[in-house]
């Protein structure tokens, strides 16, 4: 580390240039982090999908219902551990902009199929006793400042007279075990729902979610379910939760392609800019490099100096990642109803640093090699 002084001195000779190059790195890394976070948010459903869960929907249309009576038949299939059902409620809390997903759940079986969404036992027991009870995800509780015991009105849009408020008592909060789990859902009870819906909609659920003993059995069980209900008035379509989620994500269009394209454009540009800056800076210092060589520093040492300078800039540019770390939670809250929670993972940070170092290296290597090979005599003549 005896050359620090030399390297630092060289870096600081043109402060504006140093600041701007670090700035370029910082901006590129911030963008990289932001794009990764958005890409991850879009694909979130697929990440948390259970490997041992299957989803059963109506084959004709996802918005069509399936009879509740199918449940017992599904339970009898060997290999099925537990079955629960959900309905999409789609209500409005005060304003459409306050969107969060509301599901009608079956309290008896919910926890067996979604063990990773944890509710403290005492809250769950209260929920089991309260017909108008509701369990809310931690994120939504925080968003609206609700507390356990609050009575919340949700206006119905799909069931009964549109605009009527259905009121629920918040009996508990659920937390996901994994930071990626969705904590925005609002659950209320099937019996409360069943009582209020019009006659022709009674006994109909939106979709089944089942848990299988062995994920390898998924294909067999899915086929068994669909065959069982083929040619009935409500034909089913069963697939694993991850396949379902992946299909859902794909409907958003090729976001990944878009993001990868932008990311590539940005990094390529960054490489050009920093490469050019390094080249100019080396060209300016030709006489000095020549003198360094003349006094005895080896060619390799000179290459080392130039590479080190560039890498130091790259590391300092990682401040962009720090900025992203601070900005992402703010952005996430600002876009609460539009996108799932934005999370920045350690993988993103590490890839960012690695990419920065790679660009730092790549941009300095050509000028560095040029400086390494420079003949002292020629260089001194160019003063």
């Amino acid at each position, binding site marked *: 580390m005896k050359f620090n002084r030399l390297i630092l001195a060289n870096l600081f000779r043109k402060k*504006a240039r140093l600041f701007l190059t670090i700035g*370029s790195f910082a901006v590129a890394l911030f963008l990289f982090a932001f794009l990764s976070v958005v890409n991850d948010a879009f694909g979130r459903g697929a990440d948390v999908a259970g490997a041992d869960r299957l989803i059963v929907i109506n084959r*004709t*249309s*996802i*918005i069509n219902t399936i009879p509740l009576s199918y449940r017992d038949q599904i339970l009898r299939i060997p290999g099925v551990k537990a079955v629960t059902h959900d309905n999409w409620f789609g209500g409005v809390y005060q304003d*459409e902009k306050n969107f969060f997903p509301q599901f009608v759940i079956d309290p008896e079986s919910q926890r067996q199929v979604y063990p990773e969404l944890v509710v403290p036992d005492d809250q769950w027991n209260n929920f089991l006793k309260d017909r108008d009870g509701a369990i809310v995800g931690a994120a939504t509780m925080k968003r609206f400042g609700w507390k356990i015991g609050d009575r919340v009105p949700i206006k119905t849009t799909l069931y009964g007279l549109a605009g009527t408020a259905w009121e629920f008592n918040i009996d508990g909060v659920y937390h996901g075990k994994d930071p990626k789990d969705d904590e925005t859902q609002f659950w209320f009870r099937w019996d409360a729902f069943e009582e209020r819906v019009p006659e022709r909609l009674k006994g109909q659920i939106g979709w089944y979610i089942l848990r299988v003993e062995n994920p390898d059995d998924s294909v067999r069980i899915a086929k068994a379910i669909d065959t069982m209900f083929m040619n009935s008035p409500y034909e089913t379509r069963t697939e694993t939760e991850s396949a379902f989620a992946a299909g859902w994500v794909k409907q958003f269009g090729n976001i990944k392609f878009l993001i990868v394209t*932008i990311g590539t454009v940005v990094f390529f540009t960054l490489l050009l800019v920093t490469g050019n800056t390094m080249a*100019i800076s080396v060209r300016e210092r030709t006489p000095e490099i020549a003198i360094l060589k003349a006094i005895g520093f080896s060619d390799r040492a000179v290459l080392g100096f130039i590479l080190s300078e560039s890498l130091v800039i790259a590391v300092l540019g990682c401040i962009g990642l720090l900025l992203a770390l601070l900005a992402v939670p703010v952005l996430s809250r600002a876009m609460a109803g539009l*996108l799932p929670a934005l999370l920045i993972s350690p993988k993103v940070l590490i890839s960012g640093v690695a990419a920065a170092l790679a660009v730092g290296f790549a941009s300095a290597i050509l000028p560095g090699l040029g400086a390494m090979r420079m003949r002292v005599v020629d260089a001194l003549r160019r003063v």
Partner: protein
Amino acid sequence: MAAKLLFGIIITLLAILALVLVVVVIGGILAGLLAPVLGSVPISYNFRSIRARWTSTIVAILGIAGTVGVFVAMLSLARGFRATLVASGSAGNALVMRAGSTSEMMGGITLDSVKIAMDQPGVARDASGQPLATQEVVGVIPIPLISTGTDANVEVRGVSSNVLEIRKFVKIVQGRIFHSGLDELVVGKNASKTYQGLTVGNTVNFGGGQWKVVGVFDAGGSAFDSEVWCDGRILNEVLKRPDNIFQSATVHLTSPAAFQQFKDAVTSDPRLNLEVQREVDYYAKQSSTMTRLITVLGGLVAAIMAFGAIFGALNTMYSAVSERGREIATMRALGFSTWSVILSFLFEALLISFVAGVLGCLAVLPLNGWTTNTMNFQTFSNLAFAFKITFDLLVMGVLFALVMGVLGGLLPALRAAMRPVAVSLREL
């Protein structure tokens, strides 16, 4: 109290700063563009120095061009999405839905209600005196995407057979419309490009039946272009909806001005529980969430990239100035004024950024009209739309490039001109 005052001061300062910045940028652009006239440094100097330092110039150009390209692409994506939904519908049509519904997917209205609504004043009639109204059933069905092979929820609309007389902006471009009572489909032009199997003569399987595609329609780039239409009564059976219940009705008004009259008549009738909107207004609202998302994300990305491009441009220009230190000093020693030197540099920066802006725009132009698709949360259905690059967007892109050029070139230009001549001449 103190916090509010402080906040107020900060906002005022920021506003002043923003104003100063705007003035500087506009001034810079004007000055730079008028440099050949105002300044005395010949522009051939700029051209020659660009040629002499072509690598740095290419770098700056690519940096700015890349940013402009992304900026224009993102905005045209949002525009295309919005244009699709805004173009949907005509001012001469009114949409009738169940009161309190926020989208067609929800709610149901009875045939009786529709019949009463159709008889209200303001509804146009056809040659035989029948009211021009179509009662519709809307649903989503899974059809695989051509791009990924996985299913997308495609909007299927069951309409009345006289739908083309009501939606006059829809034209059949291939084949014919379905015959009422038969399992036939007519598909939108974007739908046939995005989902598998939607070509004339092909059969599509859904709802336990085989449907024959008999025609393709062009709905002027609106949301309808992503839809599949068929006979409403058959769809009702397939989707297991109760008979004689529809999701919406669209009436053709005698004139756009008749809207208020029609709306008042329908909403004041005690037998009906309906709400009335202009077709265009309904579709504009359907796009609001998704447009907001795309615009916010796109805007953020473009803003971040702009910062990067400005840094890059600044870097390049500063380096250019430091390399040309002796040239600048020589020019000033020869007698060119400081002002002329500044103008000359500004001109060069603007020239570079103008070329970069045009290049960036040209690079993304092939995207225009390219269809892509996404899911519209509000209607739960897939929507195919096209990138829409308009002339004003291109102009905005080039202006954006010029702004980046000015911001990148002004400070170095000032620096170049202000340095004492003797010091610059002395530099190695």
